[in-house]
């Protein structure tokens, strides 16, 4: 089944856009965007098995740590740089985002919302949240950052990034009412002012 986030991302990008997917995993999103929008897509991924899946799908991928891989691209290479479910694993978030704006016009950033009500409940009860979108336990999580929709909006404000669009999702539906409380995931489209 196609995640709602994929459909939304596909709906906002233009036909034949050039797209870089950071942490593209097995390349499912790239493949979906190629199918729906005939994009010219590429990915960066660190996991070897995932890289194999990508190449078997015929995708162009760079086997590298995201933060080390970006300097392999010239300025303004892409219409969109997608950071899908990856930002929470990045060490130097602000320098990486600046680097993304060097190589791409717009950024599409999708991330799990740490302030969703079930996470809040877990914390209230004294436990680190383990949810569908934050599925790891504290000792095996690859995530090193835990942030919320409000946090990300503040970040954009401080960095003077313009928010072109934002979408919020619960499981299988869009959320418009109190997203920081009810949305499991968020998708922001931002650009430099």
């Amino acid at each position, binding site marked *: 089944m196609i995640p709602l986030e994929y459909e939304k991302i596909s709906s906002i990008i233009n036909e034949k856009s050039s797209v870089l997917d950071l942490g593209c995993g097995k390349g499912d999103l790239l493949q979906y965007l190629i199918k729906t929008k005939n994009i010219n897509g590429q990915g960066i991924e660190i996991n*070897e098995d995932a890289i194999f899946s990508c*190449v078997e799908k*015929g*995708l*162009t*991928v760079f086997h590298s740590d995201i933060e080390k891989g970006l300097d392999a691209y010239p300025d303004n290479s892409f219409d969109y740089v997608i950071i899908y479910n990856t930002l929470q694993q990045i060490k130097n978030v602000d320098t990486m985002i600046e680097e993304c704006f060097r190589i791409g016009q717009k950024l599409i950033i999708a991330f799990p919302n740490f302030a969703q009500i079930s996470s809040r409940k877990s914390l209230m009860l004294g436990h680190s949240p383990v949810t569908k979108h934050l599925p790891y336990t504290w000792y095996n999580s690859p995530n090193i950052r835990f942030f919320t929709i409000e946090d990300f909006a503040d970040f954009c404000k401080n960095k003077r990034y313009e928010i072109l669009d934002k979408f919020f999702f619960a499981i299988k539906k869009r959320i418009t009412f109190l997203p920081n409380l009810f949305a499991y995931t968020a998708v922001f489209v931002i650009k430099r002012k």
Partner: protein
Amino acid sequence: MNKKDIFHFDYLLLKSGKKLENIDIAYETYGQLNADKSNAILLEHAFSGNAHASKLNENDEPGWWDNMIGENKAFDTNKYFIICSNILGGCGGSTGPASINPKTGKEYALAFPVITVEDIVAAQKKLIDFLGISKLLSVVGGSMGGMQVLQWMISYPDSILSAVPISTAMKHSPQQIAFNEVGRQAIMSDSDWNNGNYYQKNEPKTGLALARMIGHITYMSDKSMEAKFSRKLKDKEYAFNVGTNPEFEVEGYLRYKGSSFVKRFDANSYLYITKAMDYFDVSGKNFTIKSKNKNLKSLVIAFKSDWLYPPYQTENIARHLKLQGYDATYCEIKSSYGHDSFLLETEDETKLIKGFLKSVEKGALK
């Protein structure tokens, strides 16, 4: 369907400015060239390889990339026409220092002109032209074969649709030159080498075998040597003797590899080919692909345990291509076999190359 042949042409103007005449290029082909000649893939052999990449028939000797070539393999002979030729300067049927110099009627020896990777690839281009192929679907090779792949991208970018350089570098580092130099010194310090004039006499077997032994150490890894030999002895106990018999398994292995190499390789070829590798430098501005066609795709593969051609060197190729706006995929495969991985990890390579070739064909149809 498979065949073995020699392509002959009159001369080649070399990078050194010299002219080499009366040239033979030995080659083999597997599979069938299609009607519009669009399914040809050129395989580039490594330093000590030859045109025999795969068995020509069931009873044939194994080739150097047998597991990759054949029906339903990475280079599927049901779909593709595979070409592999012995390099210029080699000793596997192509013209090299052991060939007869038409001017003297004797072997060239050191009168053979110095050749470069550019010259090697120029000779291959003539073969491809002769076969009537205007665009290769891909050029693929590891190690020195990878250097030839890079040279194809630079010299003839409009004659290839894609490229697969494996375990290779844009230039030799001092460490790589140093290993080559030790090999050359081993040969030249053998008195039988006789300034290259050993044909019809005693060949410099000791020196050539020693060069090969050193080479073999650089092709393996600490881990693969531990797995293969550990400290195993040929006898039960130490002999307490510094004599000539190999005691450790690894000693026996290296001597065996050395002595079997001298039966199939020419010492002067060793000198010329290692020199061609050391001269090769397409780093920086030298790696400029002069083509309007930005669709040239590449798959760049490295192996983690390769310390002779460390992955960073191979990764730099992919970075360089991307910075020039070319579509390059880079994969670094886990493997413990060291530099030899590109000949041994054929299962992983098969997955990658199959997927890649499919996407190249798809792109070509667009």
